[in-house]
Each structure stands twice: as C-alpha cells, then as structure tokens.
C-alpha cells in the first residue's frame, strides 16, 4: 500500500545553516509516526515545509500518491494536512469559536460552528466552551482548541509539534487517548517530540533526525529509551553523577508570598512558603503558565511584595528592587533570553554590565568603568565557553545555547548567595545544557543556594536536592528529590499537594 505522505530528498538551507539535507521518509495511513531529534536537528523546518510555511530548496513530497507542494498553510489545510503548533497560533482576545473559525477554510455560520465544536470536542474527550475567551483558558485547554480546530476539518494528516511539553501527566494520558482514537479512524499523525518514553508508548514508527539528516528509523516499542537517545545524540548518555549535598544555614526564606496577577491573562501567586539552604538546589517543576514567570519576577525584584515575605540570610527584602537584592546576594536569570535576560541589540559587554554593575561595582559616580566591564565580560566568555566573535558582538547574534551560557555565567561569576534560574536549558543544545547544569551544581557545591524553575522533569530529577511543584500559583511544600516517582510528581502537578506518595500509588493502581 502506498504511504499517505512520502518525503523524498528534501533539503532546505538558511544563510549559514543547512536545516535539512536530503531528508526522506514515509508516513503510512493510520499510523502515528514519530519525528525525533535534539533541538536544532531540523524537525521544525521539516514540518514547516510539510505545512506549507516554508518551501523546500530541493526534493519532492507526495500526499496519497499525488504531487504535494503547498503554496501556504491554506493550501496545505485544503489538502487535509493540519498542524498543532508548539507555541500555539491562538488569539487570546478572541473566543474559542472565533479562533477555530480562523483556522478553517470555509467555516459554517456562528451557531452551527459552536454546535459542531461542542459535538466534536466531546466526542474526542476534549470538552470546550465555544464562547469563552482563549486568554482565560489554561494552557492544556488552549491546546484542545488547536486540536479541535484541526479535527473540524477532518484532516488526513495531523502534525503535532511537541504537544506534551505543556501538559500535566494526566492531560498527556487524555491526549494519547484522543490520538489513538484518531489512528483507529485512519488519520495519520506526525508526532514531534524528544520525550522518549512517550514515543515508545504511542508511536508505531520513528524517524530520527540529527544535523538536518535522517540518521535512523526504528520501531520505538522495540527499543529502549536509552538506545533511541543514543541514535538522537550520536553517543551514549552519561549517567548523571550523584552530588553529595551538605545543607548549610537557611539562605532564602519565603513566607506567605502572594502576588496579584498582572494584566488580564496573568497568574496570581498564592501563599508561597519555603526555606532554601546554602548549598541546596531546589527544583521547581510545573506546566508553563502556572506562575513560573511571576515567581521569578517576585524573586528578582522586578515586582515587589511585602517586605517580610522574602528574607535573604535573615534580612527582609520583599519590598526592595533588583539592585538592592543583587547587592545583598540574590541573583536571577529569567527564562526569556532575548529581551528579558539580555538586550538583543546591545553588545555582550553592555549585557554584562546590565546585571553586573552593582555587585562588581562596574560604575563609579555614575560613570561606566569600561576596562573593568570588559574584563568581567571576557571572564564570562572564557569560563563559560561562550562562542562569540568578540565582546562587541550583539547578544542577539549569539546562538541560543551560547547566549544562555553567557546569561548563566554572568550571574554565577558574581558569586551569588542565592541564584534563581527559570528554564535554564530551554531550547539549548545538549552539550550546552550539560555545561549549564554542571555549572549550577558547582555553584551549589561552593555553598550557594540555587532555585531551578523548569518544565523538564528529567533535568530537575538530575540536579535537584529538593523538589516542589508550582501549580496555579501555589507551590507544593518541597520534599527531598531522592525517592520521588513520576506518579507522585504527576499528582503534584495536577495541584493535589497533600496526597502522600503511597496514597497516590494506590489511587492509580
């Protein structure tokens, strides 16, 4: 039998980068096909070509035997190819129904559409209210909107880009149920991920990309997570080294920290309390949009709270701004590298000055001490292996991994008492990610308290001493990371903090 989608020798180059080179693979009718690879392996470019957002430089595609070269997403959708984006293409200020109508070639009138949305979404176990504003929905529910938008057009091929990165384990199960139902109905699914366990559970076949090329194909169920990871990275994963952790005195303590939400669609922080000891790494897990950004802003000092809510080494600093906190030793590295942690259009040395000024006294009488700033910048670049033509280079011109190393290095080299990082390895290649994690562990070993906010559970399990979950603006009480299982974490992520691990295990059995 002919495949649904046949990719034959597709290549695509950008200035300086070969994103895809001679890619060939097939997606059969009614299969869930995994597209696997590290960040930067060329998965995104490939699916953008299938969805018509990018034209291939070379090669051909065939859909159900016919030539397939979509001029744009509209053409792709007309031929039965639909896509759920990793960063949703949704409009917050519009309703669910309006959002769905925008993704359809020829939407029915309002009332009929609302009716259809209700029917389809219930049928596939993804209930939705058509008249609600998307901005008011949780991340998981927003994904449903994307999926229902695709389903309403009865697609032949559904492309899903990292769909579970924003879901709780329970929501993931629900999604898998929907996808299996679709498969049964003959819909093919191209499933992009780098989460190996999911792929082994769900997918029939897998194509593995590295450096823009297909390097392997396999049947995931017959492989181990380790062997697939080997194909992805090209070498075996080193087992994480267990760090010995000697807790010191309490370095940072939060007591009843609350923060109202900002803007129409923000999250409020509610009654957050914990103690962080010197030398300890506290991992904070949680699905995006549960208050991670707000927690970082409250800790960095960009948003103020009542004075006593935050204490650093016993000193109440909740009402102080970023620079007072830096002087006291509380440093932070926000998630968004471009525009928040760093100013993209400014040079590396200016970006080093951006946070280094207070603690390293890089300005005197208001005047910049250029030589000292440059010295500090060179130290960050050298010690953290930041690949850059020089320190005059704009921050925005660095690759994600290099800029992230710069951002982390800039804070680590200021010898903080406490460092807070949000998503330290998001969108960073494996090598840089490992370097960053190692530097955070070294920092803790040297006696600093470290808070790592991340959505990557594997990462947190690897480096954390204590573990806690942020859900809907509340933080679960931290507990030792050793001995936690994924089931218990899943329950914590759903917001059920008081359930003991044993109970959780029984409940799911």
């Amino acid at each position, binding site marked *: 039998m002919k495949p649904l989608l046949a990719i034959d020798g597709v290549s695509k180059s950008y200035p300086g980068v070969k994103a895809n080179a001679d890619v060939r693979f097939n997606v059969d009718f009614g299969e869930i096909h995994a597209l696997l690879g590290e960040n930067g392996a060329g998965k995104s470019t490939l699916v953008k070509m299938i969805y018509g*957002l990018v034209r291939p430089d070379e090669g051909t595609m065939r859909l159900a035997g016919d030539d397939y070269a979509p001029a744009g997403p*509209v053409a792709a959708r007309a031929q039965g190819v639909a896509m759920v984006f990793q960063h949703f*293409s949704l*409009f917050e*200020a519009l309703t669910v129904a309006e959002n769905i109508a*925008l993704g359809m070639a020829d939407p029915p009138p309002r009332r009929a559409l609302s009716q259809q949305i209700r029917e389809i979404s219930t049928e596939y176990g993804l209930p939705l209210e058509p008249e609600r504003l998307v901005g008011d929905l949780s991340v998981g529910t927003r994904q449903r909107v994307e999926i229902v938008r695709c389903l309403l057009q009865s697609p032949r091929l559904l492309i899903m880009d990292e769909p579970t990165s924003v879901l709780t384990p329970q929501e993931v199960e629900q999604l898998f149920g929907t996808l299996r139902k679709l498969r049964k109905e003959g819909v093919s699914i191209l499933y992009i991920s780098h989460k190996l366990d999911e792929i082994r559970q769900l997918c029939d076949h897998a194509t593995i990309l590295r450096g823009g090329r297909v390097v392997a194909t396999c049947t995931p169920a017959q492989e181990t997570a380790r062997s697939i990871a080997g194909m992805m990275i090209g070498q075996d994963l080193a087992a994480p080294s267990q760090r010995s952790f000697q807790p010191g005195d309490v370095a940072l303590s939060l007591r009843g920290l609350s923060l109202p939400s900002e803007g129409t669609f923000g999250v409020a922080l509610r009654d957050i309390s914990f103690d962080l000891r010197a030398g300890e790494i506290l991992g904070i897990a949680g699905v995006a949009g549960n208050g991670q950004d707000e927690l970082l802003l409250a800790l960095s000092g960009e948003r103020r709270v009542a004075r006593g809510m935050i204490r650093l080494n016993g000193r109440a600093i909740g009402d102080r701004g970023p620079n007072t906190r830096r002087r006291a030793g509380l440093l932070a590295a926000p998630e968004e590298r471009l525009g928040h942690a760093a100013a993209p259009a400014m040079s590396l040395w200016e970006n080093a000055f951006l946070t280094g000024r207070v603690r390293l006294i890089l300005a005197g009488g208001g005047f910049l001490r250029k030589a000292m700033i440059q010295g500090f910048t060179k130290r960050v670049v050298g010690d953290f292996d930041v690949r850059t033509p020089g320190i005059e280079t704009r921050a925005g011109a660095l690759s994600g991994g290099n800029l992230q190393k710069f951002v982390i290095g800039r804070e680590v080299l200021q010898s903080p008492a406490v460092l807070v990082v949000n998503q330290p390895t998001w969108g960073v290649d494996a090598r840089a990610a490992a370097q960053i994690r190692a530097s955070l562990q070294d920092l803790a070993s040297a006696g600093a308290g470290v808070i790592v906010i991340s959505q990557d559970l594997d990462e947190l399990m690897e480096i954390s001493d204590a573990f806690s979950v942020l859900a809907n603006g509340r933080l679960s009480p931290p507990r030792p990371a050793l001995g936690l299982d994924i089931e218990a974490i899943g329950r914590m992520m759903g917001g059920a903090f008081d359930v003991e691990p044993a109970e959780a295990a029984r409940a799911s059995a």
Partner: protein
Amino acid sequence: MDLSTIDPVALFAGLVVAATPLLFAAIGELVVEKSGVLNLGVEGMMIIGAVCGFAAASNSGSPVVGFLAGAAGGAAISMIFAVLVLVFLSNQVATGLALTLFGLGLAALIGQPYTGIKPPDFEEVHVPVLSDLPVLGELFFQYDLVLYFGVAVVALVWLFLNRTRAGLVLRAVGENHDAAHSLGYPVVLIRFAAIGFGGACAGLGGAYLSLVRVPQWTEGMTAGAGWIALAIVVFATWKPWRVLLGAWLFGGVTILQLNLQASGFLSWLQSLGIPAQAQYLSMAPYLVTILVLVLISADRTRARLNAPACLGRAFTAAG
C-alpha cells in the same frame, strides 16, 4: 450674560456637524489600530484630505467630486506611511509623526491658490415630511448626505469587524500577527488595506472640514483634529459605537465653548472681576481630550481588554 442665545436644538445640530470630521478620522484609525498598526499621521492625512477635497470641489464645482478627491488624497498619502512601516519596517511612531509634518507642509503648498475663496455649496438633504417636523426635523433630518454617511460608516465598520470573516481576520492580525501568519493569512497585505482605509476616512473627514464645517481653506485648519481623533479611539476602547459617542462629545465641547464665547459669558465673568479671556475657553477641547484620556487610561484592565495586542509592533515573517 445671555445664555438664552444658546438654542439647544441649534447646539445639537452644530455639534453633529462639528463632530463629523472627527468621526471619519477616528473610525478609520480604529480599523488601522485593530489591524495592529498605530498611525499617528491622522492629522497629516486629514489636512491633505481637506486641501484635495477643497481644490477638487472648487475646480469641478461639485462637492461630491471634492469628497472623493479628499478620500483619495488621504488614502494616497497614507500609502507612504504603509510602505515605510510595513516594507521598510520603520518605527511607527516616528513615521506617523513624519507623515503629519509632511502632510501639513504639502497641504499648505497645494492650498496656496485656494486661500480665501468659497467652495461650492453642498445641499442638505430634504426628506419630505420628516425634515419639516418641528424640533425632530431640525435635530435629525436636516443635514447633508456625507454626515449621514459618516454614521453609516460607523455601523458598517461595526458590522465588518464583528460579523464578517474578513473583519475577524483583521482583528486576528492585530491581536497576534505571528499566529495569523502561521495560519496563512497575509498580514502585510491586510495591514496595507487597513491603512489605506484609515487614510481615506481621514481624508473624508478633512474634506468635510474644508467643504462643510468651515467652509473654506486655511493653512493648518485641522488644528489638532487628527490628534483628537486618535484620542477618541482610545476613549472608545476600540469599539465603533463609542467612537460615535466620543466624536459627538468632542464636537459638543467645541460648539459649546464657541456658543459661550458668543453669549457674553466672558464679559459676565469679567464683570465679576475674574480676568477671563476667550483663549481660556478655546482651550476646552484640548483640555477635555486630556481629561478623557486620563479617565479612560487609568482603568488599565479595561483599556487593555480591547486594545489590539500587536499595536505598534513591527512584523517580519520569520523563515
């Protein structure tokens, strides 16, 4: 002071006429902003509309030709802005300002031969029976066609934005241009169209100013009307019907202060020993604009709810 010289019916009629240029300019700018573009060149487009409309009407003897020329002039000059902002990705604030400065100069240049002449008369419509009704007729049925057209445009824009697919797409582009692009909508093209529409509306408003409201051509005759139109869009929190309300409010302030000046209000104040001068009354429209801006903007959540999320941000299609 003789307040009895102020006739409420005439006041309302004056208000509606004074509001019409603002109405056109503001409803056009609303559409532009809904598509995610901030065009601060309304003043420049209006005055170009005023001079083009005046020149065309004087030369052809037909006010209708004048209005068409005003709209065309406004739309044409708005395309300079559109090209700079959408193709050359220039800063929208700076480019809008440049458009205003350029428009004021160009209008003065075009308008030189037309200073001090009278435009052709523009007939008010006469609806049998209705126009002859005592108060009601004077209140609602004795205006020119363009004024009714202005109110109709507000209704049409509302209908377009809320009841048509094209309007939904336009709002989507203003809300999240990256998402709209990834769904396959032509962001730049839609914005070109919106800016052109905004320009045509501002041009019509300007033409109404020089052909009906004043009616003559003088340099700089818009006197900030374009800027007030921008404020009305904020006041309206990007809702078409509230643009109508806003325009009438500002029209009302303008007419009221003119009536007060004429009524001997000032000499009455002066007789009380208050050093009143006409200039202070003339400040009223501008001060009311500021006041209204403050009142609307202070309620941040409400202001943000309808403001297009991509307003003023440059769009580049990545990869």
